[in-house]
């Protein structure tokens, strides 16, 4: 399998105990404790105050981490293609709509309905950023971050253009919580650029690794505490990134395929 390289130009991270990448880096390195009391939900600056209040949690999370990663990259948000990902989409809206459909389907809110599409966050991001570039929304169950990273890295390499990758999941509520396991809020983002053009920025080498692979577990306690979120597959990579670790890790893309990742020191 061929190796490919991308530069990580910007990082975004948000969890109630680690709101923002600088805080998350410190916590994941063991240099600081988790935020206490935890933050409730992010307030993405990309949205006007009224929109910020109205935005579903999925959208607030996605725009927060996307905004953080893009700001860190110094790139213009309007020029970046984007890959958004979520394991389950907006679980709160799905619970609401399915409850309504079981009783009074004609009373469904049109806003709730159009916010229920998996690409709602991508849509709000492109609107907030004034971005006409390609944007997509993907999902891959328990491997949604790994598959989003793969899709973004592939797009970055083939189009020879930087790409924003953002992934998020929220808490399962209502009856859905009896079948879908996800608690709390977690979101991550990366701005990937082709090749190794920016001195000082981390370079990620990646390749597909056929064969069955176990999902790596988060190492530190504050990361393990987030592992009940459906986006938990992102945590081991962001621990590695925070610690600038150069040992390779293999994320699970599916039952018989891994994504081998290594930061070049």
């Amino acid at each position, binding site marked *: 399998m061929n190796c490919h390289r991308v530069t990580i130009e910007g990082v975004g991270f948000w969890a109630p105990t680690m709101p923002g990448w600088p805080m998350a880096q410190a916590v994941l390195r063991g240099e600081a404790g988790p935020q206490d009391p935890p933050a409730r939900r992010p307030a993405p600056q990309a949205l006007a105050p009224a929109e910020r209040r109205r935005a579903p949690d999925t959208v607030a999370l996605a725009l927060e981490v996307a905004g953080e990663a893009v700001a860190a990259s110094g790139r213009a948000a309007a020029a970046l293609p984007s890959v958004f990902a979520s394991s389950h989409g907006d679980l709160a809206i799905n619970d609401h709509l399915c409850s309504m459909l079981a009783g009074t389907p004609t009373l469904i809110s049109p806003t709730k309905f*159009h916010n229920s599409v998996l690409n709602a966050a991508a*849509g709000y991001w492109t609107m907030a950023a004034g971005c006409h570039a390609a944007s997509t929304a993907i999902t*891959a169950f328990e491997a949604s971050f790994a598959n989003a990273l793969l899709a973004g890295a592939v797009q970055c390499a083939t189009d020879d253009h930087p790409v924003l990758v953002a992934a998020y999941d929220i808490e399962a509520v209502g009856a859905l919580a009896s079948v879908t396991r996800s608690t709390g809020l977690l979101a991550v983002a990366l701005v990937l650029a082709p090749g190794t053009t920016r001195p000082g920025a981390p370079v990620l080498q990646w390749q597909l690794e056929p064969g069955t692979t176990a999902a790596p577990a988060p190492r530190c306690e504050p990361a393990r505490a987030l592992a009940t979120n459906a986006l938990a597959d992102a945590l081991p990579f962001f621990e590695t990134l925070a610690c600038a670790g150069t040992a390779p890790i293999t994320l699970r893309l599916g039952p018989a395929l891994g994504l081998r990742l290594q930061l070049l020191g």
Partner: protein
Amino acid sequence: MPARIDPLRISAYTATTAAGPGRQALHEALRANRSALRPNDFGPHALDTWIGRVDGLEDAPLPEPWAPWECRNNRLAWLGLQCDGFLSAALDARDRYGPARVAVVLGTSTSSIGATEEAYRSLDADGRFAAPMRLPRLHTPHSLAMFVREALGLEGPCLTVSTACSSSAKVFGDAERMIRLGLVDAAIVGGVDTLCGSVLFGFNSLELVSPEPCRPFDAQRRGISLGEAAGYALLERAQADDALRLLGYGEASDAHHMSTPHPQGVGAERALDDALARAGIHVGAVDTINLHGTASAKNDEVEAALVARRFGTGVHASATKGLTGHTLGAAGIVEAAICLLGLEHGWCWGTPNTHVLDAVCGPQIRLEPQRRAHRVALSHSFGFGGNNCALLFGRTDESR
């Protein structure tokens, strides 16, 4: 502008729609320019509209090994796989390249949410899913692609694209990129969406559902008719004896509104330009267009203006949702199949149900099918969130 890409071979393709299972049924309906819509008879709650429903799914349970994937959407996925020899073509690609060298990239808007809706109608006394329905892999949007990957025994990358009504058009882009980078040698692309309460009553809440069979681009159009469909294509690197090819694709964003297209069609036009650039052709090389044409007031107005502004009068443009209904996340692959049928058989299709074209339409938009051998077909797919995709397909000279 993106760089030109090498075209990909389309080794096999299929579509199952309200017209019936497989290409033949769709081809006959297209030739007859007839509608396969019927008065809405779906689900426990009445809604005065017309739908494109696939017959027989209620009596077509999944084979025993796939029982944990049982739901209407996966039934339709399985029915679709068995049509037009697609299943054997996919298994043959697996055997030739190895299971890790074939990707699965499928589009869906709502996947198996119909099964989730059903679970909500029969919650237990504690307000939880009844025990037999607690299947985490079924109640998640990746359910469709996980099922298809398992049914085909594939081990390559497996991705669900869910960008509403552009989903199963954009899968061609993801697959092309993975093949170009050498990650895989072939890809199963496609999409499946089934009728469910979420979309019937969701689009109803937006006042977009028509009380009569939808009439794309008609002056008197009254909204959309929802439908369900499954479709697939097998993509491989181009070879000398290809008949049909993917020439290019373009993806772009409106950055305007969640459920209304950009009034000047900015995202749609950028998707078109990117598709032309990847194919390395000029707009004048396009012979026929399968329009997104939902029959919503705004989509058709914006799309008709784009066609009138960018294309010559010789192009034959039409919309086929009056036949199939709007199959949402499956619309991209269904309309790709309609383009491929036209290229293969030398027909440009009509616009079923539409009687009198809206004054915004230019001479490009045609109501009747026309026998016309051609080389390049374009398909438009536009989705909520301002998500646009354009696909270009070609028939090669060698095979004519």
